[in-house]
């Protein structure tokens, strides 16, 4: 199992991976399986990055396990193991409840077509054209349109349809109607094809299984190992400084935030002025707030769905979704089936959030605002679980400040950077020989699946760089 600190590490590795988010973890495992020596350094005491969990009393709370696309099964099978991918199952109860519509769906293409042509009364041809168009979208013929323009072409004036098709994606990756249509197309096609999936055993079992696999494949895994510097010798990357010690490596992959990696960790002089100013201009994605609710032992929640996209806002509005005055919440309801053998229920309420709304509050105000958010969330939840106030025994709030503290992401970003971060991340190794970046950037490389796949893509680049 992972060792704390860097005592006893070798003095040189083929590759050092900074950060054990899903991008870093998968990259490290792929490189180890390709025969490379790998050191994985994580500053936190736990692996997983944002894919994390925590224990309170007898509850286990999942932070980022609302659901992921079907593609995760293949990715986990190929780059981890069949045992791990075998625990992925579909979540069938996806609910929407807002002033414009209330419905339940399995969130797959077949069901969406049924909904759009039935209840939303769009003709079959338009729906088929929309799905065909979105599916075919790729980088090579990106027409520069925004998501909003895409919807306007297919469903003019239909803000109810925009809400149905967009609200979950906005939760999933913070994207807005002003983001490039291409990023929406890719994420939407991934999710829409077969529905939403989860991991039986919860995030803790998932990450523990990944850790076992890493150790089996020879990765040297270290927690409580904070990388302070990436060393550049004027020509290429030669290693890192971690917990005050220098460790050499043929290559370095950073799974830390893109901007932190380039602007804080990397030695001065490694970046040209142009690359640096382009990096400085990259916008960070929004953060999140969550309320965690633990249900008392012996109490039950009737089945109300797995994932509830709820909103009291009249219309879909991404600015409102980010507002500290929360109108939209996603409730993830975790039933005992998630962790077989344990008769436990938890509910996690998530909202998109802006770091700046929480950053500068006085301690007193911060605590008061957290309490208000928790209370307001219980009020809303009463609609679905009327006795929630009497059956819960734990209530806790995470804000953008919490996310920043645990992952060191700039402004507690939940989903990496906006679109312009992608070329910076991808071209980094052409700018600085031996340095690579993986992890959430540009929406499409975000989420469990996006980050894991990006880890594999980057492992291939690193392996090529290290040579035969």
């Amino acid at each position, binding site marked *: 199992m992972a060792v704390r600190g860097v005592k006893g590490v070798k003095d040189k590795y083929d590759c050092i991976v900074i950060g054990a988010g899903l991008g870093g973890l998968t990259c490290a495992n*792929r490189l180890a399986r390709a025969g490379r020596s790998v050191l994985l350094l994580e500053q936190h005491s736990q692996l997983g990055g944002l894919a994390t969990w925590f224990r309170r009393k007898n509850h286990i709370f999942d932070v980022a396990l609302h659901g992921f696309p079907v593609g995760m099964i293949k990715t986990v099978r190929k780059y981890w193991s069949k045992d791990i991918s075998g625990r992925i199952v579909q979540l069938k109860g996806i609910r929407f409840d807002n002033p414009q519509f209330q419905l339940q769906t399995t969130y797959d293409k077949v069901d969406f077509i049924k909904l759009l042509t039935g209840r939303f009364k769009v003709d079959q041809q338009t729906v088929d054209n929309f799905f065909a168009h979105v599916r075919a979208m790729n980088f090579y013929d990106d027409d520069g349109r925004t998501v909003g323009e895409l919807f306007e072409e297919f469903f003019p004036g239909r803000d109810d349809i925009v809400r149905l098709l967009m609200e979950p994606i906005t939760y999933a990756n913070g994207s807005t109607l002003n983001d490039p249509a291409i990023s929406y197309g890719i994420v939407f096609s991934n999710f829409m094809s077969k529905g939403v999936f989860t991991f039986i055993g919860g995030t803790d079992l998932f990450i523990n299984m990944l850790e076992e696999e890493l150790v089996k494949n020879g990765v040297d895994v270290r927690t409580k190992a904070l990388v302070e510097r990436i060393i550049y010798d004027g020509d290429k990357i030669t290693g890192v400084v971690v917990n005050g010690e220098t460790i050499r490596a043929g290559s370095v992959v950073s799974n830390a935030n893109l901007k932190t990696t380039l602007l804080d960790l990397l030695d001065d002089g490694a970046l040209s002025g142009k690359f640096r100013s382009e990096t400085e201009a990259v916008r960070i994605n929004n953060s999140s707030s969550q309320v965690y609710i633990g249900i008392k032992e012996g109490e039950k929640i009737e089945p109300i769905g797995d994932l509830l996209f709820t909103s009291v806002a009249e219309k879909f509005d991404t600015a409102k979704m980010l507002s500290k005055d929360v109108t939209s919440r996603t409730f993830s309801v975790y039933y005992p089936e998630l962790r077989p053998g344990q008769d436990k229920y938890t509910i996690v309420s998530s909202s998109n959030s802006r770091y700046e709304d929480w950053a500068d509050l006085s301690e007193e105000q911060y605590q008061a605002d957290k309490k208000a958010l928790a209370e307001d969330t219980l009020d809303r939840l009463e609609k679905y679980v009327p006795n929630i106030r009497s059956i819960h025994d734990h209530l806790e709030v995470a804000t953008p400040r919490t996310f920043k503290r645990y992952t060191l992401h700039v402004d507690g970003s939940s989903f990496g950077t906006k679109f312009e971060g992608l070329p910076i991340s991808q071209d980094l190794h052409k700018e600085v020989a031996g340095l690579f970046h993986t992890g959430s950037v540009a929406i499409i490389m975000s989420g469990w699946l996006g980050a894991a796949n990006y880890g594999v893509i980057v492992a291939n680049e690193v392996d090529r760089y290290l040579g035969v």
Partner: protein
Amino acid sequence: MTKEDISQAVIDIIQEILPDEDMGGLDQEKPLRDQLELDSMDFLDIVMELRKRYSVEVPEKDYMELNTLQSTVQYLQPKMESL
């Protein structure tokens, strides 16, 4: 390696990446993608395995050479015949 060896080596790699696919009836001249559930991640795996097993490098600009089994073997032959 002969052409047949190279072809078998490629098939072995794909079979390992896609254990559930039947590789028996593969048409040499048809795009692999039309016959198998191969996505772009799978192609990366093929490239990485070729590097690991045979020390062969396939630069990104040549990825389209891996279109059919025939074109793949043709492309790899000069790189692998001396193995």
